[in-house]
């Protein structure tokens, strides 16, 4: 098991916050998720890549919000009353991530977990830590560090501008 996956079991005790994007259930380590807020007005920021939705005012702090849908190359969809923003803290930086629907908290065990998936060429596996299978549910566990890596944001932004 990779170091990051190990950390997930050691530090978060296998607890995940899960949400839906489209039909698929995704999970992030509970320790990385700071809070969940309902949709609020997002101020767009010019000259940024399309997945960068803009910035919000979260109790006086300005934090950027990204759309995981766009980030994962899925088709665009208007947000609904069920959409919400998951605030994720990675390396001292806060980022809001728009998800379609919040499922809840689930605990997985090592035996349910599988990494190094080969999901075919169409799937962005670089953001995926692994997969958990719970009865009928299949949860894709995201590597948020990768998802939110700054370098990539800057790169994308450069090519976009």
């Amino acid at each position, binding site marked *: 098991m990779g170091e990051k996956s190990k950390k997930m079991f050691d530090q978060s005790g296998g607890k995940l916050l899960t949400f839906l994007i489209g039909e698929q259930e995704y999970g992030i380590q509970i320790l990385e998720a700071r809070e969940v807020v309902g949709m609020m007005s997002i*101020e767009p920021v010019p*000259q940024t890549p399309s997945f960068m939705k803009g910035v919000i005012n979260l109790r006086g702090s300005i934090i950027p919000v990204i759309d995981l849908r766009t980030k994962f190359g899925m088709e665009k969809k208007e947000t609904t009353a069920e959409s919400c923003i998951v605030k994720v803290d990675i390396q001292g930086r806060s980022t809001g991530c728009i998800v379609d629907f919040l499922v809840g908290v689930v605990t997985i065990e090592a035996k349910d977990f599988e990494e190094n998936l080969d999901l075919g060429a169409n799937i962005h596996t670089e953001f995926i830590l692994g997969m958990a299978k719970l009865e009928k549910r299949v949860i894709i566990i995201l590597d948020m560090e990768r998802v939110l890596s700054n370098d990539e944001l800057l790169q994308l932004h450069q090519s976009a501008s």
Partner: protein
Amino acid sequence: MEAKIRKQIEKKLASPRKALQASLIEADLRECKLTNLTDIMLPFDELTGVFGAHPELSEFGKALEFCNDLLGQIATEHISHYTGLSYVFTVYELMSDQLDLFLKGDTNLDRFHLFLEKVSQAFLGVENVKVVLASSSQEVIQDMPPQDLIDDGTFSDFINEVTDGLETVEENILEMEQDPSQLSLIDLLFRVMHTIKGTAGFMGMPTISKVAHKTEDVLGEIRDGKRGLVPNVFDLMFKSVDTLKNLIIQLTSLVQGTEVKPVNIGNFFRALDVVYGLAEPDPNIEQPKAQSPLSKEEETNAAAMLAAMEEAGEQPGPGATKDEPTLSDVAKKGDSGKGPTKIQDMLKVPAERLDELSNLVGEMVVALSLLTQNPIMAELTDRNVNSQLDHLDKITESLRDKVLGIRMFPIGTVFSKLSRQVRDLSQKSGKKIDLQLKGVDTLVDKSIIDNIYAPLMHLVRNSIDHGIEPPGERGDKNEVGEVEIKAQHLGDAIEIAISDDGKGLDKERILEKAIERGLVKNKESLTEKEIFGFIFMPGFSTAKQVTDISGRGVGMDVVRKTIESLRGKIETESTPGKGTKFILKMPLTTSIIEGLVVAVGGNRFIMPILDVLQTITPEREDLKGIQGRENEFFLLAGEMIPIVRLYEVYQLEPDVTDPGQAVLVVVNSAGKKYGIMVDELLHRQQIVIQPLGERFKRLKGVSGGTILGDGRVGLILDPVSLVQKQPIQEEV
């Protein structure tokens, strides 16, 4: 050697010795008006020549060689002026004395030879000092005096002398700390340090000599009123005394052959760097100080203070003479805040807590201004509510001022660092410089203090190296070049101007270079300020020759970047033959600004009021087109001003696309005006700037974000970088 030959030699030596003496003394004056190093080197060479012709004098030749080598190392910046020159002086003075003896017939040079060896060894030790500083490890300083000095008792005399002297120094520092007005004590301290320096130097113990020398330098500056009695200086004094004491103890152990305890002389040099503003004060320095023997003094101090207060309380009024402390005297003592008694009253808090506080106060100011501007409030007629609101407004205002004031410091601390650099520069470049510092008491935000030194240094360097002409080429002007640094408040902004009376910028050459580098195609349309602005481009240098000091074309772009990061801008004025003036304008604080909220489509942006010259909706006939594109310019008081459509720059969907119906916000960038086109102006508001973070670092024309009255986020525009032409941007 025959007396006749000695006479001959003496004659030959007389003139170069005199010249050297003079230039060394001038160098020792430690003024900015310094002679060139070559002024010292020339007579040195001449002397070396004479020595070379007489083999008996080879020992003196060696001493000179050593000095010459030192001067070379100073010139190439391998060692500092202070260190280098102090060695040169020590060696030269001793050589001179020995030479006199020699010429009188005392031809025994054994001791001199020994001394030279010691000095060169110790000089190698100087390099080691740097290592000590870097690793802050402890060191055994190999400052062994010659055996014969130990044998004849000179050494133990020295030890006693220094020990006594240090005791006196310690007592006097404590006294001055209580009452900084006793400046006369400085003279005493100065003399003690001078003696230690001289004796230790003579006895071949350069480390002790050096510590004493540096301390003497600082004391000298205080005596001459160039430096105040600030806590850093006292810290240095105590460090100096401690270091010297420890060195003496170490030396005694070395001589007696007992166990040698290493001495951390890095502490002293760190304190020295702090005094010269080259290092931040160590946050831990207070600790040992409070626990040092001084703490015993605290009680006494407090008691004395109480007694003085009582006395003053009994005898108030105009009758009080100077001997009887008046209340104000006592108050002054308290205010001085430099004694160990006051240290406990100082509170050290992490800077970020202050930042949080000032952010919150900022939010409060904004919230209050939104409340008072609320239309419902305007309808309130209750006098009580209105006066209570007024009161709240006043309290908030003064709270804001107080909180911002915590972060304010006089810019003089930065200036004094500069004057030291100027002194070195002036020597290195061989130009005589008179540095004028004005407005040293001007208070500015700590973020400015922390960041302004490097850009100011670059600009001053530029003035000295490229601006001021070498001596002899200054024509009618005073031979001494003048560089002035002046700080002043202009409303909510601070302006720092660096001006010189040198040859001015070569406009044609800058333009030529700009065209050569592809920065500009159409030179006719450029204003003077725009042309001068090119010198702040990366890698842009018109210097024909890269000198030791500057001319590599790095630096000026860093200056611009730093100033821009402080939300400031640079303007350049220059007259050929008369001089150049760089004007830096920055907002006083970087956290709260007055902003103009504008709208484009559904988006709102904030423009800092400081950047806005005016806002206008142009008349139809004032709009002009170019190259088939309509409405690219508008006429404002006879000036053609380009229109920058914000919706185009940021690809937004505006409500208004016709400049005749939109609002143009006129801003100034590099001496040229631009009209930034927006849909409408919403209102003016005080805003708290929040950085947007790494992610948006490359965003063009946006300097931060803020929370607007309705809780939504607004982006703060930086009009200056917004209107900059793309080619210039990409060049970066």
